[in-house]
């Protein structure tokens, strides 16, 4: 069982869709989230030093890390979390926060001082060396910060390394390595030595080596940190694509919050050996657990993390297809907008009606709003990142209509809301959400509406 990630909207195919549910309940992604736990970490401690056990006891009693330093260095303190199958779980923290130590305990490269780590059915923290090797061969592979390729072997032999350890026969492992090399886009480089490749290509080899073994769990230790920003971005996007097609469980270590926010389905923030918060990127951003996390997320590129759904306003100026121009005008005057969106009965967005057009129509005695309906309105999907909203927002004279995957209107984003979200201004009642000042003065509409009508009254929405 694996979860289907909600991949790619039409407007921005490469964007990592945030898999959260918008606050208003308008579901965005059709997910089949499995609750099966791939990796489980419970109360794990790692202490370096001769009196490690004493240090753990003292920490459990509530002493701080600094108080126990004379006895030993506590690298990881009471870490607990579960990673669901098919999830990208990011552990984020600055250097020295213990994240690299933590990931090395997940596959037993470092034994935990206390606590338990479970991968599938195997209790990593209490297992024979032979069984541990078997788990590493079959269930969990790893990608390293500095690639850790075998410099005396060709790309193909590097990728085949894990299979070789598994005992796969040479012909078959070469065949499978070739497929994986193609998967990461390195065809034609099979016979080169690692030294002949650029950093990004080396890490593709590292990734291919881990993928070739076909383990369920992939540990990535600062895998993209040694790459320059453009390559890093490319690798992140490739990882997302691979993940959506292969459905691996990925535990990704990084010190880069933007990377964490981009990749993570969930993020654990670490500080001084402790996990201070676990949550979705949006939760971390909008509801930081403490000052440290808040400080940390202060610099994050919010435009890449927040989605349309998280900042949109309820759409108030909505008219139905049966409404007449007078009802539309009244609505626009009351809402102080220059236009109203027209939706079908099931709230499917049909288009927009402008105040001036409505007034002209009403003065001429017209009834049918559809004759003045502007159908050329481009809606945005609710899982679109803010960074992808700027161009539509500039091009549109109206607030951006936000629709769900069925084309139903779920909200609007006026430009000022977009700016407020970027500046982390909490929306308040005082904050006017009017985007476009009415092009017809309200008094003119009022005057018109108070005129006695010759025709039958229209039905309000």
């Amino acid at each position, binding site marked *: 069982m694996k979860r289907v990630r909600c991949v790619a909207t039409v407007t921005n195919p490469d964007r990592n869709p945030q898999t959260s549910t918008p606050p208003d309940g308008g579901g965005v992604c059709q997910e089949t989230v499995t609750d099966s736990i791939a990796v489980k970490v419970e109360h794990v401690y790692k202490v370096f030093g001769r009196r490690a056990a004493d240090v753990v006891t003292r920490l459990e009693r509530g002493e701080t890390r600094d108080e126990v330093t004379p006895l030993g260095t506590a690298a990881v303190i009471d870490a607990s979390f579960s990673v669901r199958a098919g999830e990208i779980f990011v552990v984020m923290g600055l250097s020295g926060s213990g994240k690299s130590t933590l990931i*090395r305990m997940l*596959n037993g*490269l470092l034994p935990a001082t206390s606590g338990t780590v479970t991968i599938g059915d195997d209790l990593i923290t209490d297992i024979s060396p032979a069984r541990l*090797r*078997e*788990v*590493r*061969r*079959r269930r969990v*592979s*790893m990608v*390293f*910060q*500095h690639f*850790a*390729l*075998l*410099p*005396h*072997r060709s790309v193909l*032999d590097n990728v085949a*390394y*894990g299979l*070789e*350890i*598994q*005992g*796969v*026969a*040479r*012909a*078959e492992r070469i*065949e499978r390595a070739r497929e994986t090399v193609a998967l990461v886009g390195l065809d034609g480089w099979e016979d080169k030595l690692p030294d002949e490749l650029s950093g990004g290509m080396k890490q593709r080899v590292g990734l291919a*080596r881990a993928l070739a*073994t076909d383990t369920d769990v992939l*540990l990535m230790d600062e895998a993209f940190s040694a790459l320059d920003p453009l390559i890093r971005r490319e690798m992140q996007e490739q990882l997302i694509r691979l993940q959506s097609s292969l459905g691996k469980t990925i535990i990704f270590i990084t010190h880069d919050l933007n990377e964490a926010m981009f990749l993570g389905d969930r993020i654990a923030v670490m500080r001084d050996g402790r996990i201070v918060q676990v949550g979705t990127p949006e939760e971390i951003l909008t509801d930081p657990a403490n000052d440290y996390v808040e400080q940390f997320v202060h610099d994050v590129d919010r435009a890449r993390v927040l989605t349309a759904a998280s900042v949109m306003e309820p759409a108030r100026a909505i008219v139905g297809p049966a409404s007449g121009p007078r009802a539309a005008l009244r609505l626009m005057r009351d809402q102080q907008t220059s236009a109203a969106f027209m939706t079908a009965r099931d709230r499917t967005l049909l288009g927009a009606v402008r105040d001036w057009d409505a007034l002209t129509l009403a003065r001429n005695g017209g009834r049918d709003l559809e004759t003045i309906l502007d159908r050329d309105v481009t809606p945005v999907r609710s899982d679109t990142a803010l960074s992808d909203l700027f161009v539509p927002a500039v091009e549109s004279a109206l607030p951006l209509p936000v629709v769900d995957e069925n084309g139903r209107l779920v909200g609007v984003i006026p430009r000022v809301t977009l700016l407020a979200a970027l500046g982390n201004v909490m929306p308040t009642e005082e904050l006017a959400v009017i985007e476009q000042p009415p092009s017809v003065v309200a008094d003119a509409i009022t005057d018109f509406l108070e005129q006695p009508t010759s025709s039958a009254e229209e039905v309000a929405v």
Partner: protein
Amino acid sequence: MITTFRLPIGDAVESGIEALTETFGWFFSFVRILFQGMYDSVEFVLLTPSFWIIIIVAALLGALARGPLFGLGTAVGFTLIVGVDQWDASMETLALVLVAAAIAILLSVPIGILAAKSRIASTVIKPILDVMQTMPAFVYLIPALILFRVGVVPGIVATIIFAMAPGVRLTELGIRRVDHEIVEAGQAFGSTPGRILRQIQLPLALPTIMAGINQVIMLSLSMVVIAGLVGAQGLGGQVVASLGRIDIALGFEAGLAVVIIAIFLDRVTASFGTGKGLFIIIRRRWAASAASAPTDVVPVKP
């Protein structure tokens, strides 16, 4: 009185050696016969063919390792040795150096691996190496003479003891210096420690180990005069003889031959460490065999 009291360390060692001779006499006889046999066969190989065959082979080796110019230089140098009539003595010395260095390498590389793997082994081995390298060679020549009798064998033993240290040290250093992350990668994919050693640590430490082997060979050569003192023939014997007769001419000619052989051996073995010439060929072979060797599974037709 304080002046009359001595710690009897020397006496203790002496009686220890005597006990050794009595109890393990068979063992030392065995070692003596083994080393003598090895020396005799190498000497036979070097001295049986006409000298120009050896010169051609050496020149080819030199050309492979360092290029044609060095091959030519080798030929000229070796012909010079023939010219000063030191050929037989030189081949005896070469045989002694090759045998002693080979045994020293066979012992020092595994000890170096052990020292790299175990902190305890490393702490124990280090002071022993210090003693072996700094204790004046004459001191252990005496027991070597008693245990192995006069001849080439005590010379070989003294040479092995003196020359082993850099082999052990550089093997340990080379393995410890292998990028920790690459070793971790081996572990993370479920490789056994032996396989990590064979497929990752040894190949990556090879340049350093080769530098150690080069040092072992050079130190072996520096011991030839000492070996000459205890009855080994060769250039060492010539030098000792010239010293006894104050024969400047003979001494210089023998010394010159030592220098020529030393330069030849150094340049050829150093090319192993720098990754040029011969080294590349050997290493490619090794890498290829290491990559394909562990296929204990029957290959399946794709």
